[in-house]
Structure formats: C-alpha cells, structure tokens
C-alpha cells in the first residue's frame, strides 16, 4: 500500500473528528501506520482502553483492517479485540465474518484454530451458517490443536443452534474424535459430548464397550484436565455387571496417586459409584479397595485450604456412606492452629462422624482445647460437638458430661449457653440418669440470655421439677418477663409450668393459671394459644389423662442433625467432586435451568391429574370385579386400599375414606370424601402429617377439590407425599414400626380441623428400582440371618389369584419384582417364586412365595435386615395377593 494513501486517509478523517475524540483519532492514525511496531502498540492501547471499560467500538473497522497481516502477534491481538466484541456487540463482529472464513484456511494451525474459536463465541444466528463450513473442516484438520479447538466449538454451536449440530452430523464427528490419536482432542470431545448430553438430556455419549476401552486408554495419556473429563463421564456410565465394574476400577485406581486433586477426587467418585455394583460376593475386593482410598483422601488435606474445604465436604459424604475407609484416621481431622475457619468447621463435623469408643478420650481432649480458642462460632460448635458425642456414644456419655461441666465452670457466657443446649439433648437421650448435674446448671441461670439456651434450661426444669426443690420459684422468675421472651421460650415455659403443676399441684395452682392466661389471652402467637388451650382443656376435663399426655415417655433421640437421607446420600456419592457434593444438595436444587422445558413440565403435571381423575371414576366399579384387570396383559396398576378413617361425627359432617398407593413413582395419599352434613361445599383442604415411621410428608399442604363437593355429594382428592428424614418418627429399638400415619385435615371452607390415622400399606413405598441380579439376590438371601425370617400363610384366595403368571404380573405393578421360580423337588405340584422389593428409603425385602396347584393359599417367607418393618412388608404382600 503506497504511503500516500495512508496519510491522505488520516487527513480525511481529521475533518470528522471533534476535539473530544482526540485520543481515539490518534489511535486511529497509529492503526493505519505502516510501521508494524506502531500498529502493534496501537492495538495494545485499544485493548487497554477496552478493558478499563472505554468504548472503542468506533475503531472496529480500523482494528479489523490490521488483521490482514502475516504477523501473528498482531493477528492475535486483533482477535483478542474481536473476541471481546463478539460477546457484547455481535452485529459489529458480523463485519469480520469474511476474515474468519479466510483465516480458517490459513496455513498456520494457530490462526486456523483462532478463527474457529472466535467464531464460536459470536452468538448471532446469522453467523452460524457461515460457521458450519469451516467447523466441519476444522474437525477433520490435520493439526490436533485445530481439532481440539473445533471440538469445543461444537459445544458452543450446540448452545446457539442445537438443530444445526444434529443436521450437519457434528455429533457423529465428535463421537469419532473419541478415537482420535491425540489425547487432548479426545479430552475435549468428551467434554463437549458431556456438556451436550447434559443440555439435551439425551445420552449422546453412548459409551459402548469399544468406546470404553478407548476412554480408558486415553486416560493414561491425557493432561490432568482431560483425565478429569474422562473420569467424570465414566462415573455417569453404568457397567453391565460386577466384573466389568471391577475391571474399570482396576484401570482407574492408579489415578489415586495423581498429584492433581481434581483427578484424585474424580477417581474416588468412579470407584465409589462402581463399588455398589460389585455386589456383596466381592467383600474382600471391596475391603482392599477401601484400604486404598484412605491415603489419597488424607493427602488431599495437605493441599491448599480451598482444596481442603472441598475435600472435607466430600469426605463428609464418604464417611457416611462407607465409615470404614477413614475409621482409623481421625487424627488427621484435628484442627490446626492456622486452619481457616471454614476448614475447622468442616473438620469438626467429620470428627463427630468418626468418633468411637476407641478414640473418644483423644477427641474429648481435643474438643476441650478448641473450646478455648478465640473464634466464638468455632468454640460453640466444639462445645456442641461434645454433647453430640455423648448422644452418640452411650458408654462415653459420662466423660462427655464431665467435660461439659468443666466448661460451665469457666463461666464464659457463650460456652455456658451452648453447654446447656446440648445437655438438654443428653437428658433426652438418657432420661433420669444424670440429674445430679442439674444443680450446677441452676447456678448459671443468670448467664443465659439466648432464647435457645433459656428454652433448654426451662425444659430441664420442667422435666425434673420433682427433683429441683425450688423449681416453681425458678419458673416464676422466668414468668415475670414472659411477654418479652422469644416464642420458643414462651412455649417451653408454658409446658414446663404445666409439668410442674402436674407433679406438684398444691404450690403451683396460681402459677399455672397465670401462664395459661398469658398464653391464651395476652399472646398473638397462634402456636402458643393453641398449646395453651389444649393444656387448659386437658387439665380441666381429665387431669389423669393430662398426666399421661404431658408427662408421658418421650421417644429416644439420636445424633442425626447432619445425617443425610440414604437415597440422597447415594445420589450425592455419584456427584463427588462437584458443586452438588459441596452443597450436599442434588443438582436440581440449585442449578438454574434454562427457560426451555419448564412450561412443558407444568403441562405434563396437568395431564397426569386428568388421567388420574378419569381413573378414579372407573375405580369404584372395578373394585368388585377383583383381579380381572390382570388378564389383559398390560401393567397392573395397584389401587389404594381405601378404608374409612373418619366419620361425620368427628369432622363436622365429612366422611373420609383414605389409602396410600404409588402412581408413576410418586407416593400418594388418596381420599374419597363424602360431604354428609357440612353446610359449605368442600373446595379445599389443608393437610399435615404427624411424624411417622416412614418419614412421609405432603409435598404440598393444599389440596384442591375440583369440582367442589356440595353437601350430600362426594368426591376424591389425592396428595403427593415425599419422604424426608426429618419427618421420621423415632422408633424404640426392637419394636415393630408403627404402621399408622396420623393426619390432620383442615377444611378450608369451615376452618374446622379434624384428625385421623391411616394404616400405611408398605407397597406404596416400594421403589421402581427394586429389582436385583439373581446372583445378588442369592447372596443377600444367604447373608440375612434366619432369625430375621418371617413366615405366614394367606388362604382363601380366589383361584385367579394363585395363578403364578398373573401374580408375577400383578406384583410388578406394585414394584415387587420377580427374580426366579422353581418347582419344589419331591413335592408334586408345588412351586416357589422369589421376589425382591426395595423401598424408596432403601430397605430391602426378599420374599419366597410357595404355591401348590389346586390349593387356594400361599405360603410367604420374608427376609429382611429391617426387622421392624418386616410385619408391614408381610401385610403388604398379603393384601397384594388378595387384590
């Protein structure tokens, strides 16, 4: 280009620049300079202003002109500029499309890759069509650097135009890249496929035996990031059987030695997920593996604190799932003086998980030491940990209490308060055992100024009122400030006063009257008023009954504050190393879904409801016909066994029949409601469940009756239930589980509340994945002790209900899965059939049913480790047979 033209250009533009644009103008001049170094410096200056937020988009064409150069440094700088505007001003970037297309044919692979990489970042529909051609070429480029860039670019394109990716066959090409000779290309192809799989919800990865071998081979060659991508995709794959799982584990185990903690964590994830599949027959192999897992996990604790934190959150999951792995390593979780607070808190949590009778003395010494540190929250957590150890280890409880008493002597305000709170828990766990320390606690009444500590202390006074000489005086001092107290304290105060009254009626008559007045008349808090009224009525009608209710035995508590629900835990183990494992929440709980799909989901729900309603209409008639539904070959759909649970006399004119069943994987409480004499038509109900043996709670508290049920009419309603550990009622050991689920219903029309109990049929809890391998079944069957066997006979069955084929089909509808059948040797016409069931709470049941030709009866033999639930499972089988 002749020099003259450059300068004339510059001269021309001088006419158009105002004074304000002086700086930009100067830059523009420099961009058009002939000297290379000046140009380079100019582009650098442009980028500099860009990064501090100045608008240099007016120089776009000038910068773009510089791209026509053989100088790579300059070219890269121009692309640095372009890539920034590709994000914010895509329209401008369209001007550069020709440059991109041209550069994607450049002889230098760096430039080819640069062009493809930059084009992928421009989120404009119009550009995608230009992109396809160069991308297709880049995916088959001879240079691996270009291919690896192109692989990521497919993921970018999928984000803008998924259809285009499918249309152009890029997914197949990507899949071919898994067998690429260059490990970085393999890694990026795997990363891109995983991302597309997640975005589309389809299995685009399609791991076959051949692909698996390639992935495992690439694992040894890749960079650390490639290894992570491959391991993460392996973790999502389900091996065909135990042997394959073991084979993969063997190839993955050397990764545990890797210096990169991400590789180690991903390898741990693969191994733990696959271990599940190895089956109990491989207990030796599993034990050997758990031994191998401990050192790398411990080594993670020597990394930077940030890694330690993530590692500790994961170890928390691992020790819940497989406590043996780290049972001898508790010392490494002791806090260091200079650990950041977030690491210390996580370490404490793990110490409590690992504490045992063997190491309790060491742990107590350590926790006591922590209680003198400066950080208040850490100290509190350490004190509360001492109490949790006591609740967890019966034999060490006394020692723990000793330490707590020592701490109370220090008179440090927050230490005392925290101690009182945990001592209450210890009293709950071991009633009537350690009351001797109450005196010490009472000495510290004045220091308690936090609601929870006050409430705990008041609870203790009420519970042990008969052993504290001046219990009524103590309560009286609290009562003086009743109105200013926190609601939690008020509730405790109310209960404690009533307890005190029941134990010592003479001296406390006035006091109980005063507190009942305060609760029912002065307070605006509905909980407090309700509780006040209940006590009042109880006391006025039947003091003996009141005694039984208020002073009754309380269920035993456990240290399970931070224990995760087994099904959640299992799913989190599959998420090790991810954010999900750090938050201890499933991914759906925090990942923001993209707009698509949500609307669809809503529609689906509606459909389901409609379908449900139709079904219920037909249900009435079918009930009488019995097992007729079985013969049509389709999947049997279980009905909820409906029983009358409440009559009109208790519920202000509403009769309810209720039962449980599972439909499409959700547990439902179904109710037939007859409005016998309620004045208003029933249009909506609110429901609440009491804690129960199954952890059931309603997914939504509102039930809408559509159409409303007028007086004299009837209708049905269903509510979806979910299982949450917090709703699990504590169970005394050795007792069978209580099958009752207590329900409270509020009729929204009248505001009337009524209560009833429904017997839970366990089959509603059977999960859809309850089937197991035949070999695993045999192993499990053998491993369960004979004492945990339960026998029974179901007789007087209709003939159609003892046909084995139809029983198998019917049971499948109940998620009770057929394993095997065989004739009984030496017994003509007898046959045994085996079934397996697993509840959504992960309890396994194995059943053996014996049928004899011509006999309308079946013998049941049931095996399970969960003896408490065995009678319920047996009852469920019986009703399933009769259905």
């Amino acid at each position, binding site marked *: 280009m002749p020099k003259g033209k450059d300068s004339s250009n510059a001269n021309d533009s001088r006419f158009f620049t105002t004074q304000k644009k002086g700086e930009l103008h100067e830059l523009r001049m420099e961009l058009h300079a002939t000297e290379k170094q000046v140009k380079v410096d100019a582009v650098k200056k442009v980028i500099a202003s860009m*990064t501090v937020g100045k608008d240099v988009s007016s120089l776009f064409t000038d910068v773009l002109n510089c791209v026509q150069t053989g100088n*790579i*440094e300059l070219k*890269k700088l121009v692309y*640095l500029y372009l*890539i920034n505007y590709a*994000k914010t001003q895509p329209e401008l970037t369209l001007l550069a499309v020709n440059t991109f297309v041209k550069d994607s044919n450049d002889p*230098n692979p760096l430039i080819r890759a640069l062009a493809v*990489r930059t084009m*992928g970042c421009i*989120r404009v529909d119009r550009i995608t069509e230009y992109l396809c051609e160069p991308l297709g070429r880049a995916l088959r480029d001879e240079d691996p650097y270009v291919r690896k*860039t192109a692989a*990521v670019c497919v993921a970018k394109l999928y984000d803008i135009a998924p259809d285009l990716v499918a249309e152009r066959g890029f997914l197949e090409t990507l899949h071919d890249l898994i067998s690429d000779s260059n490990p970085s290309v393999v890694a990026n192809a795997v990363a891109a496929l995983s*991302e597309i799989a997640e975005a589309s919800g389809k299995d685009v990865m399609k791991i076959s035996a051949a692909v698996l071998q390639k992935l495992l081979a690439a694992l040894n060659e890749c*960079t650390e*990031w490639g290894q992570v991508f491959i391991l993460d995709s392996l973790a999502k794959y389900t091996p065909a059987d135990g042997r394959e799982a073991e084979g993969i584990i063997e190839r993955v185990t050397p990764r545990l030695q890797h*210096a*990169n903690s991400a590789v180690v*964590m*991903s390898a741990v994830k693969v191994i733990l997920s696959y271990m599940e599949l190895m089956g109990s027959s491989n207990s030796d192999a599993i034990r050997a593996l758990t031994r191998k897992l401990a050192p*790398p996990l*411990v080594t993670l604790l*020597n990394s*930077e*604190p*940030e890694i330690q*934190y*993530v*590692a500790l*959150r*994961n170890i928390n999951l691992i020790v819940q799932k497989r406590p043996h792995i780290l049972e001898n390593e508790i010392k490494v979780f*002791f806090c*260091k*003086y*200079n*650990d*950041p*607070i*977030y690491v210390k808190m996580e370490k404490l949590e793990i110490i409590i998980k690992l504490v045992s009778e063997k190491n309790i003395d060491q742990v107590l010494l350590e926790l006591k*030491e922590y209680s*003198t540190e400066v*950080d*208040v*929250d850490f100290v*509190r957590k350490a004190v509360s940990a001492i109490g949790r150890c006591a609740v967890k280890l019966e034999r060490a409880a006394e020692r723990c209490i000793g330490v707590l008493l020592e701490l109370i002597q*220090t008179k*440090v305000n*927050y230490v005392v308060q925290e101690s009182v709170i945990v001592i209450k828990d210890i009293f709950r766990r071991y009633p009537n055992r350690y009351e001797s320390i109450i005196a010490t606690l009472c000495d510290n009444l004045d220091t308690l100024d*936090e*609601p*929870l500590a006050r409430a705990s202390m008041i609870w203790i006074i009420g519970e042990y009122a008969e052993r504290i000489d001046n219990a009524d005086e103590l309560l009286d001092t609290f009562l003086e400030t009743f109105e200013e107290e926190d609601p939690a304290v008020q509730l405790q105060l109310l209960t404690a006063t009533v307890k005190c009254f029941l134990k010592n009626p003479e001296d406390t008559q006035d006091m109980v009257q005063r507190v009942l007045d305060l609760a029912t008349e002065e307070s605006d808090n509905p909980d407090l008023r309700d509780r006040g009224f209940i006590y009042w009525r109880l006391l006025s009608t039947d003091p003996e009954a009141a005694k039984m209710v208020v002073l009754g035995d309380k269920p035993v508590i456990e240290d399970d*504050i931070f224990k995760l629900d087994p099904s959640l835990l299992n799913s989190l183990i599959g998420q090790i*190393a991810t*954010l999900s494992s750090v938050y201890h*929440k499933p*991914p759906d709980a*925090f990942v*923001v879904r*993209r*707009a698509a799909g949500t609307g669809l989901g809503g529609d689906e729900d509606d459909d389901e409801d409609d379908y449900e309603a139709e079904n219920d209409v037909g249900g009435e008639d079918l009930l009488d016909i019995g097992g007729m539904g079985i013969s049509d070959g389709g999947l049997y759909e279980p009905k909820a066994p409906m029983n009358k649970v409440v009559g009109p006399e208790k519920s202000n004119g509403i009769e309810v029949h209720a039962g449980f069943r599972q439909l499409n994987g959700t547990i439902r409480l179904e109710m037939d409601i007859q409005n016998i004499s309620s004045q208003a038509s029933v249009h909506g109900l609110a429901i609440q469940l009491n804690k129960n043996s199954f952890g059931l709670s309603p997914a939504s508290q509102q039930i809408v009756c559509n159409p409303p049920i007028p007086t004299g009419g009837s209708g049905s309603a269903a509510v979806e239930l979910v299982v949450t550990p917090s709703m699990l009622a504590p169970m005394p050991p050795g007792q069978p589980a209580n099958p009752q689920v207590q329900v409270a219903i509020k009729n929204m029309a009248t505001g009337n509340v009524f209560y009833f109990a429904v017997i839970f049929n366990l089959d509603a809890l059977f999960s859809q994945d309850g089937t197991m391998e035949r070999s695993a079944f045999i192993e499990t069957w053998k491993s369960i002790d004979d004492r945990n066997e339960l026998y029974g006979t179901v007789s007087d069955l209709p003939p159609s209900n003892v046909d084995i084929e139809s029983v198998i089909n019917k049971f499948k509808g109940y998620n009770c899965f057929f394993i095997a059948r065989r004739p009984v040797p030496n017994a003509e016409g007898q046959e045994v059939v085996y079934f397996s069931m697993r509840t959504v709470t992960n309890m396994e049941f194995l059943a053996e049913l014996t049928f004899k030709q011509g006999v309308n009866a079946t013998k049941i033999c049931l095996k399970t480790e969960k003896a408490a639930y065995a009678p319920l499972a047996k009852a469920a089988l019986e009703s399933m047979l009769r259905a």
Partner: protein
Amino acid sequence: MISNFFVLSPRGDTIIAKQYRNYREGGTGAHERSHTEAFFRKIKFWDEMNLTPGGEETSSDQQKSGEKQQKTGDAPPVFMMPDGLSYLHVKRNGLIFGCAAASNVSAVTIIDLLSTVARVFKDYCGTLSEEAIRKNFILLYELLDEMLDYGYPQITRTSTLKSCVYNEPIVVENIGSTSNMINPKTASANSVHKPVISSVNANGRKTDSNANQKNEIFVDILERLNVLFSANGYVLNSTIDGCIQMKSYLAGNPELRLALNEDLIIGKKESGTYGSVNVDDINFNDCVNLNEFESARTLTFVPPEGEFVVLNYRLTGDFNTPFRIFPSIEEVDSKTLEITILIRAEMPQNHFGANVSVELPLPKCTNVAHCNVISSPGTGYTNAEFVRSEGKILWTMKKLPGGTEQTMKAKVSLSQACTTQIRREVGPINLNFEIPMYNVSKLQVRYLRIAESMAGYTPYRWVRYVTQSNSYVCRL
C-alpha cells in the same frame, strides 16, 4: 464449565475479567461487573451466618439470631450468590482469582484450575502482584485464551503454553514485601523471581536454546511441620507435609534423573528396618516416569518449564521434632502471672533455626508484661516484648543453633484477679521458624543428573533442603 473468570485486587477492583458464557437472552445480564462487586462484598464481609454454603438455614443459625456476633471470617472458597450462580475463588498473594458457574461443575477441578492459572501467571510475570498483572495484562489475556476455551481448561503447562504465546513479559521490580523475612539460605525456589520467556519470537519462528539464558535448575526439598505439644511437653500430633519442587530454566528441556534414598519405604503399616526413611503416602507429577522407582527409587522426567512440584509426600507420627517447648505458668499473686518458656533446639549442632519467633497470646485484661530472655551464648540477637495491639508476647530470635536452649521469663500483671477463665486465655504458644539445609524426614536427593550425556551441558543445580513450621503449637 465456568461462565467467567476474574482477578480482583485486594481492594476489590477487577484487574482481569473474561467472560465465557451468557445465560440470559439478549445481553450480558448475569456476569456484569456489578456481580463481581457483589461477590467481593460478600467475601469481604462474610458473616458466620452463612457458614453452610448452600445457604440453608440450620438450627445453629437460628440460635445465634439472638446475639449476633458481628465477626468476619474467611469466606469458604465455594458458595452460591443470590444471582443463582456458584462462585469459586482462591486467594493468592492477596489477589482473588475467582469464577462463576451456572451448572453443577466439578468444584475440585475449578479450584485446581484457579490455582493453576495463578501459578502460570506467576511463571510468566515473575511475581504475582497487582502491579505485575496490570503491567502484563495483554500477555495474560493471551495466556487465558489458550488456557481456557468456553470455560474448559485447555493447555495449562507453562512449557506448552510457550509455543502459542507471543507477548513478552514486562518485569516488575519486586518491592521487597517478603524479602525481610527471607534469609538467602532458606529462600525457596519460588522466590526466584524471573519470568519465563516466550520461546517464539515476533516472526513466529521458534528460537532454539536462548544463548544468553543461564542454564539453571532450582530444587527444593521443602518440609512443613505440623506439631502439637501438650503442656508437659509430649507430642500429641505430628505430621510432615513434604514436597520436592523445582523451577527449571534449562535450555533444550533435557531429561533428568532424580534419585531418592534407596531405603525409602512407602506405606504406614510396614515397619521399616532401623534408620530407613518411611513416608505414609507419596504422589507424583504427571510428567514423572516411575519405571525405576520401585527398584531403584529413581525418577526420570523432562522438567516442564517454570515452577512445578515433582512429588508430594506425607508422614505422620514418629519423627524427631526439631524444637521442644517447655512452658510453665505460676501465679505469683492474684493479679500477677509469671510465665516461663524454654525452647530447646534438638537438631544436630551444625544446623540452626532461623527467624524463630514465638507467639504467646495473653489474657485481654493484661495491663503490662515484662519479658526477660536468658540466652545461652552464640544465639545472636533476641528480643521479646508484649505487643499490646495483638494482645500477645512476641519473642524473636534470629538464630537458634542445634543443641542450645533459650528461656524467656515474662511477668504479666493483670487488671483483675486471675480466674480459671483468665488463665485459659493464656496460650497456646505458636512457634514459627525455618531450618535451612535440614529436613526432618531424612528424605534425600541422592543425585540429580541429566540423563543423556549432552556434551558441554553443565547446568547450575541449586539443591536446597528447608524445614518450615506450618503449625507448631504448644498448648497450655
């Protein structure tokens, strides 16, 4: 993977920001600067109410609502912000390397990635400081483009990156913020502040071995000790975190052979023969070839350019602690405490502890404390004084030779009568030190050779052993 990447200065200014994904339709929505500002405020004023990273309320949170302690602790490295994105960050030299992610990404990978980016930045700039980053930002953006594509980590090895990066680093004079601590003999390899120089010149042609570059390799055998003593001098807990790290400036990337002790035993359970070196666990860098490790305890590798860790090892339990601490507290009268601390150096006489400092926290109600050091000869300058602003006695010794001991007596007068609680506020004693040319585990480099004989290739090899305190604490 990650949606953006940013580096924030200690004051919260965005120094480097790069965006990889948009999640809102029609605009930059989710990752504007205002979001990194919100993020910075969050970690700056992290209150303990948020200790559960998922943001859920736990029972312990509620109990605190009554008496809220306005305290700011370190924010955990992973948490969720109200914009629905998870933010991950690491702190290096006061700078915050962070990023946001919208999906359920691998947290470990990202934290690792952030540390790696910080390390590569340091390799290229020579030092990691706000000024160095600001001066070199074009180079760093270029590096970032190669290291991350669409939020996925790509090339992160300094040596591989050299082939695709064109900008030259601008060296920043290191204003000795750390130099006052560093004794030349204990300076670790990572204190060599020399940027890696791009191997391609402006014409895009590779320049082979740079003539004016000195062939040097720095090898550190670095051990950090975590030791906890009880008040009567027993060791309660002790571990060594060790590593061999290198910084290579060798031209032509020759293959190296590094030999360790022949009697090195790995694994806790096997009891070694007397005098053997025993470590619990060891892990190696990717580039290390372990073919001869089992038989001869020899590693071969081509050292990647820049700083890297060859191997990490860990040792728990029995080893000879280099320093013993013997404290005693005496209540002279109700308001006066006399505290005596004896420190004995137990390593061989030809070694010494350097920059030894002893911290002793005192009760809040301390009026004044008089310290008096009784030193044995040859120990050099020592000083002990009560630092009121930090509420503790700081006792420093330039040098503490092996086999000697020092005693410090402090007379502490309190503003109120001493109770058990006040006594508990004394301590724990924290010891910081470095021991040059000495390591506790006895792990040694037998030799470091260049594998194939390259004629006339005589690199400078700097092999150093350094023992440092990580957490060296004595309870009272």
